[in-house]
């Protein structure tokens, strides 16, 4: 379903990786590993189409993602380094807006439930008054409402989370895989999901 063919990424005239190819079917989990600055984030951004590779192509169900555009976007969930939440809105507002923009409007009770499940405090607290980890949880709560999407791309989903939240996130990823979807994630932390595939950028770049 998701294929990468001969990807190359050059940043600041340094080649991060070249000739990187993989293909993932539904139900497969790919972990991107590598040291700081080895290009994990760059790779994920290329896969979701935010960054164009210097060479090579990403294909989704056989078609180049540059041509699919919104059609591809509608099928994926990307959670990046930045939490992508607005400081001045509450977690509930943020979540419901993010889902609507992604083309899957959800009802307030579902939003409330998702936030509750991720252990966020109830009430109308703007995100700027939340702790670092709570803010991250507010971003990750989208996972609970994106079960229908066949592709998840997660950049360091476990950063800043305490053990309970990390455990929940891990369970969600595993359940999604079991559901037959594809998940690509980058992480430094060992969280005990056994990924079917691992790309180590350190060795790939050498």
């Amino acid at each position: 379903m998701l294929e990468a063919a001969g990807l190359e990424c050059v940043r600041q005239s340094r080649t991060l990786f070249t000739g990187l190819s993989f293909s993932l079917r539904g139900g497969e989990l790919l972990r991107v590993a590598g040291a700081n600055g080895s290009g994990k984030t760059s790779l994920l951004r290329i896969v979701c189409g935010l960054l164009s590779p210097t060479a090579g192509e990403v294909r989704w169900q056989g078609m180049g993602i540059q041509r699919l555009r919104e059609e591809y976007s509608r099928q994926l969930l990307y959670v990046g380094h930045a939490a992508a939440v607005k400081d001045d809105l509450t977690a509930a507002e943020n979540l419901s807006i993010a889902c609507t923009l992604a083309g899957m409007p959800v009802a307030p009770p579902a939003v409330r439930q998702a936030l509750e499940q991720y252990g966020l405090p109830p009430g109308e607290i703007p995100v700027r008054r939340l702790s670092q980890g709570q803010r991250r949880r507010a971003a990750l709560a989208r996972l609970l409402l994106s079960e229908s999407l066949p592709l998840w791309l997660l950049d360091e989903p476990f950063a800043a989370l305490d053990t309970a939240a990390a455990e929940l996130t891990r369970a969600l990823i595993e359940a999604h895989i079991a559901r037959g979807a594809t998940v690509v994630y980058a992480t430094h932390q060992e969280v005990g999901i056994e990924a079917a595939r691992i790309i180590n950028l350190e060795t790939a770049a050498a």
Partner: protein
Amino acid sequence: MLAALRCIVYRDLLLALRRRSDVATALLFFIIVASLFPLGIGAEPNLLRSIAPGVIWVAALLSSMLSLGRLFAADYADGTLEQILLGAAPLGAVVAAKALAHWLVSGLPLVLIAPVLALQYDLALPLFWVLSLSLLIGTPVLSMIGAIGAALTLGLRGGGVLLSLLVLPLYVPVLIIGAGSVDMAAAGLAPDAQLLLLAAMLITAAAFAPWAVAAALRISIE
């Protein structure tokens, strides 16, 4: 798709409501610029009357230029712009919705408050209409042109100046024609030609700007 666009407008208005500064800064800035001049220049009614259309239009232009710097910057910094780019609706349409929200927040209030300022400068009553109308047609053009500049300079070194440098050449015709329409009316002539020209600009901008902004955003986010 419509749901997503409505949602963008709703979100930006909600944010403006929460941060209020965005609405009020643009408006307050407009009022301040227009009101400081009599303080700085000294209040001779004839002098004031003759500079009024120019001052009010310049104030509108500056206020629009300043609020544009932030059109995408906040979304860029906290990662929401990435999510917007990855959204379900075509980017051009989303951008148009954002520009609309921006205009509602920072352009429309100027149009509504302009007659009050005109009063302050002792303009004749029929001119009020021309002034408001020219601003009503002209400010969305400013918003759309400015959005292109804002998208191109997103995250760049020296973004602020560059934005002004890019946007200003395209603003100047709007200013000249907009202020010209009021001057024309003040001279007792019909300002139709100028207003029609402004409308033509608006249509052109509405047709092309969203796609230019979308292209620029895709480039800037890399």
